[in-house]
């Protein structure tokens, strides 16, 4: 009768929440994901830096979590390239290089390479990205780093299509929704790309485009294609969010989006209800278990500061007892130190919490 009853509710739609929802669903559980919105995906591109894998922690667990995440990303149509030992240098928005271990495929492609000719292609109407600045900076750094990428700057104009200054979000939304626009963009880029083996554009090729679509676009372009990080909003990050949520819905995860979780109803040391502040009246979801992946909102939701975690990463009160026997916290700080905010750490924390939640099926003995 009550359709709002789940085996696991994951609270939070960041990398850790998405991973947790995917992992719990893989284990055959009935899963709900409550997310107010894309959160920090607006800000970052989902890249994982090399140094994230050099931090102390459980390497085997991390490897398992990352392997699962990559499988999920592949299935969601936004595969990641690279690996902890395959780091490569990718351009930052200041035209420096940073060492990245894992990145979505088309960002991974943005390495200017050690051979061949590369053009950075800007858009005239997009004032927050300057292809000349990027090219000048990258050439300077590359020669210092001992490789010679010979990056050139090229520009296209979208002026009859867009009047006046535009943002990457407008370009990306149009890319998703308008086939005609996509082919006009392709035409303009093809001209800019002539004579180059590789072009790099600001990340703007769709908010929801799959790897397959982008590969087709690249094929039609006739040269290698890469996307560069931009000032937020990050199109690459938003694209990850949209692909993942589409995938989770496909595998049966129920999504509750747009409104915040305001309360966790905890009684007899069990969290049985999650309350979402939907307009009109609150939406109450009943659940067997809860994975908390709410980042900095965690202590708000718990109603008090958490004084550490037990072995099943359940939050503890200051008296050392678990706050709820079925509440698992995908948080990174206490186990991984103050630097535990990287993307790889988030994925690992989400995965860990989902595994802990799945393992305690029907067994809530306090730890």
């Amino acid at each position, binding site marked *: 009768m009550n359709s709002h009853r789940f085996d696991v509710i994951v609270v939070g739609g960041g990398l850790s929440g998405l991973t947790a929802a995917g992992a719990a669903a893989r284990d055959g559980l009935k899963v709900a994901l409550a997310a107010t919105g894309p959160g920090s995906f607006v*800000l970052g591109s989902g890249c994982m830096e090399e140094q994230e894998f050099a931090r102390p922690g459980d390497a085997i667990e991390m490897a398992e979590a990352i392997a699962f995440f990559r499988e999920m990303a592949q299935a969601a149509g936004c595969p990641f390239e690279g690996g902890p030992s395959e780091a490569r240098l990718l351009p*930052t928005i200041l035209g420096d290089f940073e060492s990245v271990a894992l990145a979505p495929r088309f960002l991974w492609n943005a390495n200017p390479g050690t051979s061949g000719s590369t053009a950075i292609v800007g858009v005239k109407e997009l*004032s927050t990205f300057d292809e*000349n600045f990027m090219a000048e900076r990258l050439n300077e750094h590359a020669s210092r780093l001992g490789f010679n990428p010979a990056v050139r700057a090229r520009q296209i104009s979208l002026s009859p299509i867009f009047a006046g200054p535009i943002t990457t979000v407008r370009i990306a939304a149009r890319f998703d929704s308008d086939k005609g626009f996509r082919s006009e963009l392709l035409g303009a880029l093809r001209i800019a790309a002539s004579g180059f083996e590789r072009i790099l554009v600001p990340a703007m090729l769709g908010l929801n485009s799959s790897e397959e679509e982008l590969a087709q676009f690249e094929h039609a372009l006739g040269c290698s294609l890469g996307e560069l990080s931009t000032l937020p909003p990050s199109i690459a990050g938003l694209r990850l969010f949209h692909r993942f949520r589409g995938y989770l819905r496909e595998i049966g995860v129920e999504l509750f989006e747009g409104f915040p979780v305001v309360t966790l109803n905890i009684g007899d040391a069990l969290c049985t209800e999650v309350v979402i502040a939907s307009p009109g009246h609150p939406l109450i979801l009943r659940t067997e278990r809860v994975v908390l992946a709410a980042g900095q909102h965690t202590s708000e939701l718990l109603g008090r500061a958490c004084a550490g975690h037990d072995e099943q990463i359940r939050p503890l009160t200051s008296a050392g007892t678990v706050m709820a026997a079925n509440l698992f916290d995908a948080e990174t700080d206490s186990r991984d130190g103050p630097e535990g905010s990287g993307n790889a750490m988030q994925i690992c924390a989400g995965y860990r919490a989902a595994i802990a939640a799945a393992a305690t099926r029907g067994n809530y003995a306090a730890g």
Partner: protein
Amino acid sequence: MESTQVVIIGGGATGAGILWDLSLRGISATLLEQGDIANGATGRCHGLLHSGGRYVVKDLDTARGCLAENRILKAIAPHCVEDIGGLFVQCPQDDPAFFEKWWRAVGNAGIPSRRLTADEARELEPNLSADILGAFTCPDAHVDVFRLVLANIQAAQARGGRFHPYSKVISIRPEDGRVRGVRYRNIRTGDEEEIACDMVINAAGGWAQSVAALAGVEVPVLCDKGTLLVLSHRASNRVINRCRAPADGDILVPAGPACILGTSSINVSGPDGLVASRAEIENLLQLGDVMIPGLATARVLRAFCGVRALYAPQESSAVAGREISRGFALIDHETKDGARGLISIVGGKLTTYRRMAEAVCDCISKKLGVESECATDKVPLRSAIDRRTHRHAARLLSQPVAAKLEIRLGREASRVIDAIEARPELAELACECELVTRAELEYVLGNSTSLPAHTIADIGRRTRLGFGPCQGTFCGYKAMLAGYETGRWRASQAATEFSDYLRERWKGQAFVQEGKQFEQLELSQGLYDEDRPVSAHPGEENE
């Protein structure tokens, strides 16, 4: 070699005021500043245009001086002043006898004031504490300090006055017992230049002591650090003062979209390397909370410190220079030290900067044998915007954007508007808090203004870009690209400028440990430099 009658050292309100006053009197003058405009105490204060209420109980002369200057500035520089008025609130913790003393003194000083009940006060300022006993009104106002200094310099430049920013004086040349010139180094290029002159005016504020030392004389200055906090929104519409003997954390000044709470008062050894301590910040917030509950948990955008350079002769008999008032001191080094042509001006307040400049210029006139009278109390600092420019702006820009542009640039706005007319895409906003268009960015970076910006922070002082919650994270990047695209910087220099600018912005937020501004700071550091986050070491002072 450049030659002039007077060299002024120090581009704060006082130095800029002297440059303008001399230029009006027809005396040629050059102003040297080691940084950009308002680099010292002027740029690091509340921006409070005092009505005199703060000093009225203890120092009636200073209070009267403030009141007179308050009226003059509102008349000659309306574009720099937000005439919002102020309140002195009576808190139950404070001495009721002081309220009565204050009320009587205000009458004696002639400061217009009304006595309000607690309810009346809260009707004007609903955020005031429910505990207050009452309040008095006063004609306090907010003054945009950067705009004020700019206005003085630009008015002077129009009459032949000269200004060299980033020019640090390295020697003062004496000859036959009098100053003949100064040598300075451009700290951006490293080039050294010399200027021949008849007189040197030391208006270097916190640096007055080291400037005097270049001429082999002494100016005893006591540096008193004040820390201030910028809060993310206007917590009041008026200046809120606590009605008690002046102490820490008892003034809140609404400034544009934000407000500024201050200040502390701590003796320091010099004006450089100041750091706001966590204890100071906590204390200010707690004190602010007494007047306006909730301030203690308000979002703090940044903390900054300045020094009040107080004139502190070890024994007054040792001072031969004439002391003008308790507020400021004019030291004639000819009578005091036998150094002809050298004058130091120290102490004083932002509100009385024009009066200080007047006193210095009267003295200069006498020494140079020039018959002249001060006119800075009557001549407007800037002429009103013309109708054509106003209509043109209204046609091309939305009302708030046009209004901000006009108030910042006055008649010069026409240049920006012409640029937008020619290239409409330049109307795009680079800074969304202060509504700075791309065209205005290019204008302040270009050479058609008499005071071009050399750094991104300079752009901030001219436009307020980066003063809002993002603290330059987004608008600073756009400013960097504008500097690159207009040819002011090559790519690597642009990136260095931006990174220097960000580091300075981060320093002001280093104490933030939680809340929205902490997220903002993390975002900024994550975007631009994850590996080298600014370490916060609260309590570590350079003292």
